[in-house]
Structures are given as C-alpha cells and as structure tokens.
C-alpha cells in the first residue's frame, strides 16, 4: 500500500519527485514469491554461504542467489552455518552427511578502480568435486545482476539448462490515472521505471538484444507505437499512422517490427523497419487481424483473427501466405506466445465466462490449462522456455504470476496494491 498511498498525495506540484519516489519505492515493494510448491517435486539441497565482504558491498549477494534458486522450484537453498568463501578447503563428505548436495562459497571485494570483484566456487558434495570457480568484475550498480548471473551459472551447472535469473521482465502499472512501464529483474526486484505517463501504456515487447522496448502509448490521444532505448531513455515514434497503431512484435533478427495498423480502415498486420519507415501489409482479410508474434525461426508469424467469426490463433508464412488456423477449441482464443524452440503455443481462451491460460503443442496435441484463475491475460515465455509469466486477477487487483509449463509451481509478484499488467519476459542478453 505504501506506493499507492504515496501516489495519492497531491503530486502534480511535485511530479518529478513523485516519479523518482516511485522508482525508489519499487525495489522494496515487489518480489516474486513462491505461491504453490510442486507436489512431490524433488528439490536439490544447495548450501549458499553468505559471501565474504557482502556487508561492505551493501548487496546481500548470497541471499539473492538463494532466493533465485529457491524460486525455480528445483532447489532447496539454505545458508551455511559457518563462514565459507571460494578459498575454503571443504570436507565435502561432511557437507554431504549433513544433507547438502552442493555447496557455494564466495566473496566480494571493492577494487581500487571502484569496481567489484565477485568470486565464487561451486562444489558437488555428492561426487566430491569442484564444479565451478569464477571471478566477475562488475560496477557497483550491477552487483544484483552479478548475483543473478552467479545463480544462473549454478543453475546451469547443476541442471544442464540455462537459468533465467539474470533476465528482466517489463510490465505496466496503473495507479489511479498514472501509468508506468516498469523493468525489473526476473525476481521482481530491482525495479526501475522506463516510462511514466498520464495516459495508458500497453503491449511492451523486448528487442532481441534486450536493450529496447517497443510499446503502445496513448499519450497523443490515440494508440501510437514507440521504441525506447532503456539505457538512455531515448525514444522514437515508429508507427503513428491514421487510426490506431498497436501490437508491436520484433522479428528474431531485430530488424523489423510487426504492427497492427488501421490506416486502411480495418485492423490489419503490417511489417516495417524497427527504426521506423514504410509499413508493408502482410496479408488481407475481411476482419480483425492483430496480436502478431514471430516464430523464433522468423519464417512465420502467429496472430489473432476473427475472419472465421470469433477470434482464433492463426499462422501465416512471413511471405504473407499461406495462412493456417491453429486453435479450434472454443470460440475465443487470443494473445499467442511461442516458446523459444518454436514447439509450444501459449494463449488465452474464454471458457464459460472465464479467461484461462492454455498451452498447445504445435506438433499436435490437446490444449492444456495451466491455472485455476479466471482472468488470465498476456502470457510471455521465459527465454529458456521453462516458465511463463502472465497477468491475472487476485483479491480484486491485477497481479503478475509465473508458472512452470506443467502448472505445478507458481510464483506471484507481490505488489503494493497497484494494478500490474502486460508482462513481457526479456531475452538472455541486455
């Protein structure tokens, strides 16, 4: 409630301070917490000792690493009961007998040039061997990021799959008549505001290099597509044609955007250079075509069309034909998202008045429901394809959640009471 309370103050006189306040308030207010633990899931017990020197550095590195591993549902992470760092000589047999499968020790040191040296070592207590030892030199502002990268290294070494702890999630917050586009670490913390506006913002989409967001802003009293560089704040209006301009999606090579334009009288899908330029109509239909997303190989796009009556998900070749219908169950299927390997479709279906997050194997399969909530929206895949983030409603507010693809482990982004929506999971890079 702290954030919304702060925003109900008469802020117009002090707008700038309020914006800064919102930036500062978010990290403390938001965090993804595990809500439903997987039944019978085996979790690898990992001990992560507090990093030597982290109190001086001012960032609780080991706590971030432990929380990351814990949140994946794959690990049970705990602190060490004795001081430990990457130089320690461990009796791994002893750790094993005390229930640890893996042990992590590390340190952080401030260097003369102001950067920090984050070092850690990962030991396998079961096989009695060292698995990993690394040093990362980072700026003070990137210490949280360094902790997430340490967690990613541990995750990959222990599971063989890339972790997504160092990735980011963009989403939109509405508090009264104020709309903010947020970018947070994948754990929901370290949140920063990319755009604050008195008008709605929807449909953020990450560039493949993770440095820019395309989104739709209504600041000019109509829907216009913008692209903003996150580091510099520089932004460019890329689609502001007659009528509405919306639903931006990046091509996998980052060169083009697919957008929905109504300049010819119907909402239709076009592609255009990501830096702005002439739009090219992808295909022609007699109904609404929108919500395009590219397949990861760039050869086709998935989109929503009501050409057959109600809205359904279709696929079209990047050349504009042929077009093929993908969803058949139910009369309302929208908001397609494609897994990074191109094999799985996530979307939202309306069923008996409820809106449910579904997945569908594109090679053939039946739709699978992943949630027991009623107002699911906007699914987006994590770049390793193992998790989805989506928006839903709980206790009267719009909230963000993540789920594993089997629906067993969910986390919820704890908020300060403001409505959160339109999540988009960023790529590995930044």
């Amino acid at each position: 409630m702290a954030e919304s309370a702060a925003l109900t103050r008469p802020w117009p006189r002090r707008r700038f301070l309020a914006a800064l306040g919102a930036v500062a308030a978010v990290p403390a207010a938001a965090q993804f917490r595990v809500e439903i633990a997987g039944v019978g899931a085996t979790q690898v017990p990992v001990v992560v000792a507090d990093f030597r020197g982290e109190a001086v550095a001012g960032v609780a590195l080991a706590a971030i690493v432990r929380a990351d591993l814990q949140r994946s549902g794959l690990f049970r992470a705990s602190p060490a009961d004795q001081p430990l760092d990457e130089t320690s000589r461990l009796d791994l047999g002893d750790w094993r007998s005390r229930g640890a499968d893996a042990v992590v020790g590390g340190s952080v040191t401030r260097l003369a040039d102001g950067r920090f040296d984050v070092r850690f070592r990962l030991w396998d207590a079961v096989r009695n061997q060292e698995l990993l030892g690394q040093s990362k030199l980072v700026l003070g502002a990137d210490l949280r990021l360094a902790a997430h990268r340490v967690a990613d290294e541990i995750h990959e070494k222990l599971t063989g799959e890339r972790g997504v702890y160092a990735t980011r999630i963009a989403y939109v917050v509405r508090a009264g008549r104020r709309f903010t586009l947020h970018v947070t670490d994948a754990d929901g913390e370290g949140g920063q505001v990319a755009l604050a506006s008195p008008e709605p913002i929807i449909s953020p989409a990450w560039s493949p290099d993770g440095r820019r967001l395309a989104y739709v802003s209504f600041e000019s009293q109509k829907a216009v597509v913008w692209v903003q560089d996150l580091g510099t704040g520089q932004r460019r209006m890329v689609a502001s044609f007659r009528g509405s301009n919306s639903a931006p999606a990046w091509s996998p090579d980052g060169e083009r955007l697919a957008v929905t334009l109504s300049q010819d009288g119907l909402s239709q899908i076009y592609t255009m250079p990501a830096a702005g330029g002439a739009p090219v109509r992808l295909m022609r239909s007699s109904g609404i075509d929108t919500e395009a997303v590219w397949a990861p190989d760039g050869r086709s796009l998935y989109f929503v069309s009501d050409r057959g009556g109600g809205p359904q998900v279709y696929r079209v070749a990047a050349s504009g034909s042929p077009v093929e219908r993908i969803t058949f169950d139910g009369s309302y299927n929208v908001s397609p998202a494609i897994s990074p390997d191109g094999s799985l479709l996530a979307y939202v279906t309306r069923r008996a008045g409820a809106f449910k997050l579904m997945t569908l194997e594109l090679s053939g399969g039946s739709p699978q429901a992943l949630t027991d909530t009623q107002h699911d929206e906007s699914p987006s895949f994590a770049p390793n394809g193992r998790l989805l983030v989506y928006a839903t409603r709980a206790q009267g507010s719009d909230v963000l959640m993540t789920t594993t693809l089997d629906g067993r482990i969910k986390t919820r982004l704890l908020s300060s009471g403001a409505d959160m929506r339109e999540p988009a999971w960023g790529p590995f890079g930044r």
Partner: protein
Amino acid sequence: MNKQPRTLWTLAATLVAFTVVLAGCETTQLDEPTAAPVETRAAGGAGAGAAGGAGAAAAGTPQSGVTTVDLASQGAAGAGAATAAPSQRIVYFDFDSFVIKDEYKVMLDGHAKVLMANRGKRMAVEGHADERGSREYNLALGQKRAEAVARSLQLLGVGEQQIEAVSFGEERPAVQGSDEAAWAGNRRAELKDR
C-alpha cells in the same frame, strides 16, 4: 579434475567466452583456490586493481540502468475536453457488435450537418470496448466500432479527412466495475472535437 572429454571443455570455454562478450562484465575462471583479492579501502590510488588489469577504470555503463522518461513532467496533453455542439456524442453497442442502432441516426445526422457546414472542422471518433479479454483484441474491437461510426458520417457526406477513427480499447472505461451494466456502458464510440 574430472573426466569430462576435452571437447566438452572446449565447448564450455567457448560458451564462457561468448557469455563474457554478451554480458559485458569480465568473468574469469578461478583455477585453484587462490588468495582472495586484495581489498582496497582507500579511494583514489593510482595503482591498478589487484585483479583484472583491464585498465578501464570505474568508467563504464552499468547494465542495470534504466532511464526514466516522465511524460507528466513534460506537460503532455490532457484528455481532450469536449466543447458544446450537438449535445449527444456517444453511441453504445451491443455485446460483440459493431452495428449502429437506429436510435443514433438522428444524432449522427446532426453531427454530419455541422461537419458539412464547416469543412475545416475535424473530429475524432474514439472507440471503446469492455474490459473482458485481450487488451489488443479489445483495441481492435473499439477501432471497428469507431470505424463504423466514421463510415456512417462519411455516407452522410462528411469528408474523409474530417474524421479520424481511433480506439482506446478497454483502457479508458466510462463506467468502473465488472458487471453487465459497467460493460454495457463501456462498449461505445465517442465523438470528440479536434
């Protein structure tokens, strides 16, 4: 060390090198448990840091930085306030419908007459949808409603350039709430002076 084949090590090394490039932070492998880096408490000091030797001082761009753009402080235009003209300016639609009901014909005729009498006058038709379902699909639904109203004005003789059909989807509800009454009050198209 362990018994992983050499090719795997090479691959791992390549991956690590790749990660370093991508990450922009310098990551090095620790071979043996070595002495911890020397902690430097004093600021300043021209001497190079204990580790790295990258030369680049604290200069560099944090990869965690996001610059805030605040449109409120830039004085973005507020909601367009409607001035007095034909008093009725809202067309309501049935669920999942884009059909303009007969009861709005007189009102649209009145707006068309004003626009035709003043060819320099411009209006926006803002379409809206109720809150249920996808925001982008609702934006397209609102657009379809706005286009229906714009087309009917054009059929009455209004110039195409005098009218722009736009949509706010579900983003600007006229009635708050999640019941049939609220939804019905939000499925609409509004005529606004430009």
